[in-house]
């Protein structure tokens, strides 16, 4: 009835594989009634085959917009990529024609959304939707595609796949629908998957099942996984690397173990201190004061400065670069966009 799963641990990969995807200095704006909303303001991140990069940040920090730009599904207009590069297998996607991007979107990279019900077609059976991946992209016959659909449903452990393949999305529970989304994303065995809050809408026991499945498939297929989330617990469970976003920028990027041991950015530090813990009964929670900035009017200098307990004069004038963080014993790359990362690390 229930099984006891081993933890989602991963061997540290010895020689770093080449970057599968690299986002360089990406800027995205939205034209709104009230002005230009600067949603993404110079994002840099990359992911390798077999790696899980968690993109962490509060709502409105630009996580989904960055993902939409990578996938080529940004709302244009009102959205607009004003500068930057998105290299996939070394090729800049922003220079490709729409047709070529569509091809990559099917077989090279795929996305899983939070809300499976609104991303699946309500009037097509799940078998037809899964099968379509193979008839459209692989030119398979309908019969073969149906067999593939059943195989995929088995693979994401949907019980009685052969019987349920003719059912419609609303006939499945939330967790089962998210499995179908995962099956769709995996159908053409892409090298990169972007999962945008894939378990946020699910209950905790179902969330655990779905994250387990995702991690297992990723390991099997050696895919790169960009996991977008606001949940510091989920990140600690599955990520190799974390990129923390604030007001459309990466403010800290680090191997997962390092960042939880000692954050190098005051925003990350504030987030870690503000969550209640399951494993201890704490005192008062630390609360980061104030609110994230209005994207129509981001403060000059460091965008976090009005909320930062460590802010100095320079923070109100100079934008901190995403600087390399170094210390004894650190082997992987680590970065922080804080003028005072050394002081922050020391606590």
């Amino acid at each position, binding site marked *: *009835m229930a099984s006891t*799963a081993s933890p989602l641990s991963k061997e540290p990969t010895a020689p770093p594989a080449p970057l599968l995807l690299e986002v360089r200095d990406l800027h995205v704006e939205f034209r709104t009634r009230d002005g230009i909303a600067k949603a993404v303001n110079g994002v840099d991140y990359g992911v390798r085959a077999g790696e899980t990069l968690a993109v962490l940040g509060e709502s409105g920090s630009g996580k989904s917009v960055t993902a939409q730009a990578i996938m080529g599904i940004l709302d244009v207009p009102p959205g607009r990529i004003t500068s930057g590069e998105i290299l996939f297998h070394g090729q800049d996607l922003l220079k490709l024609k729409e047709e070529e991007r569509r091809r990559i979107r099917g077989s090279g990279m795929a996305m899983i959304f939070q809300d499976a019900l609104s991303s699946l077609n309500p009037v097509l059976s799940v078998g037809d939707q899964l099968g379509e991946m193979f008839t459209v992209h692989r030119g398979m016959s309908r019969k073969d595609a149906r067999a593939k659909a059943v195989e995929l449903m088995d693979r994401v452990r949907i019980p009685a796949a052969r019987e349920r393949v003719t059912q419609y999305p609303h006939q499945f529970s939330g967790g*089962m629908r998210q499995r179908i989304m995962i099956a769709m994303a995996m159908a053409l065995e892409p090298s990169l998957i972007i999962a945008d809050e894939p378990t946020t809408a699910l209950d*905790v026991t179902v969330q655990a099942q779905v994250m387990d499945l995702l991690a297992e498939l990723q390991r099997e297929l050696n895919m790169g996984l960009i996991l977008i989330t606001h949940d510091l617990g989920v990140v600690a469970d599955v990520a190799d690397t974390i990129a923390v976003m604030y007001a459309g920028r990466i403010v800290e990027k680090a191997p997962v173990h390092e960042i939880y041991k000692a954050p190098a950015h005051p925003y990350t530090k504030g987030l870690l201190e503000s969550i209640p*813990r399951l494993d201890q009964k704490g005192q*008062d929670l630390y609360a980061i004061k104030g609110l994230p900035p209005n994207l129509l009017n981001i403060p000059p200098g460091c965008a976090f400065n009005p909320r930062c307990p460590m802010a100095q004069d320079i923070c109100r004038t100079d934008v901190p670069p995403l600087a390399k963080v170094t210390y004894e014993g650190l082997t992987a790359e680590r970065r922080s966009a804080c003028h005072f990362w050394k002081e922050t690390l020391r606590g």
Partner: protein
Amino acid sequence: MAEPTAEPILEVRGLVKHYPLTQGIVIKRQIGAVKAVDGVDFDLGSGETLGIVGESGCGKSTVAKMLVNLERPTAGEIRYKGEDITRLSGRALKAVRRNIQMVFQDPYTSLNPRMTVGDIIGEPYEIHPEVAPKGSRRQKVQDLLDVVGLNPEYINRYPHQFSGGQRQRIGIARGLALRPEVIVADEPVSALDVSVQAQVVNLLERLQSEFRLSYVFIAHDLSIVRHISDRVGVMYLGRIVEVGSDAEIYEHPTHPYTQALLSAVPVPDPGAREHRERIILSGDVPSPANPPSGCRFRTRCWKARERCALEVPELAVPAEFRGLSGPAAHDSACHFAEEKHVVP
């Protein structure tokens, strides 16, 4: 947190809510019932916070609505200071209702967008003018804004001019307007970002000691519930399956469902990955229209045996722990209760 006293302010006994399931459009026939809440018992001590956790659909909101009289129970008692309020009506009911107020989950939809903040917070005074005569209301509302950390000058603004966290403060101010003794908070911080969540949780804790409030705090986030609660009840499919102090539930759970639930919560500590045991439950929660016989958890329980299908386990200290004084000796509705450490 306020020191809880022995005297319960609320005693809930055998609380049941069945929603009829009907068929037919013109002539409706009842073909069954959704057993949303199906026999819930608990006490709330004066000044205490009782957390209620459980996955969606287990009946948490239905319990909350019955406590504040937004739903009428199908059966059972809700005693407020010893008096069963489910039997009251008219003036007596109105007087009691004043003392039990609710704070809702969604700060986006629970506030009327066409009313000013002042009107929203002051609305309860329309029903209970004895609490604040007309002339004093504006001042009372401004005091409430101040108490929840909002600028009293915002009294004429509309909800859309506020962030999610600020709207939740408005909802809390409204809940406090009638100076209640009990606040039922249904997922009050679930829709908020972590940094804002912490601000609101701290506010609720401060208000509790300032006004000597008793809280029923409902949430699906087990970490927040541990943080804020003195005692915790775990619900599954319309019933409470285990209840105890925070240490009893989190460090010495004896019910398999509680153990699975706790083990599935991701912990923000990557070091815990390697040596953590996770109990992954298979399958989905059964329909509350047709719950399993005996123990409702048996279709997903890895310890289920024949007895579990035949006998409903009662919520009491299990036989194997009866008479013992340790933290494992607390109420747990399982025939085969045993202690298991699952939180790292």
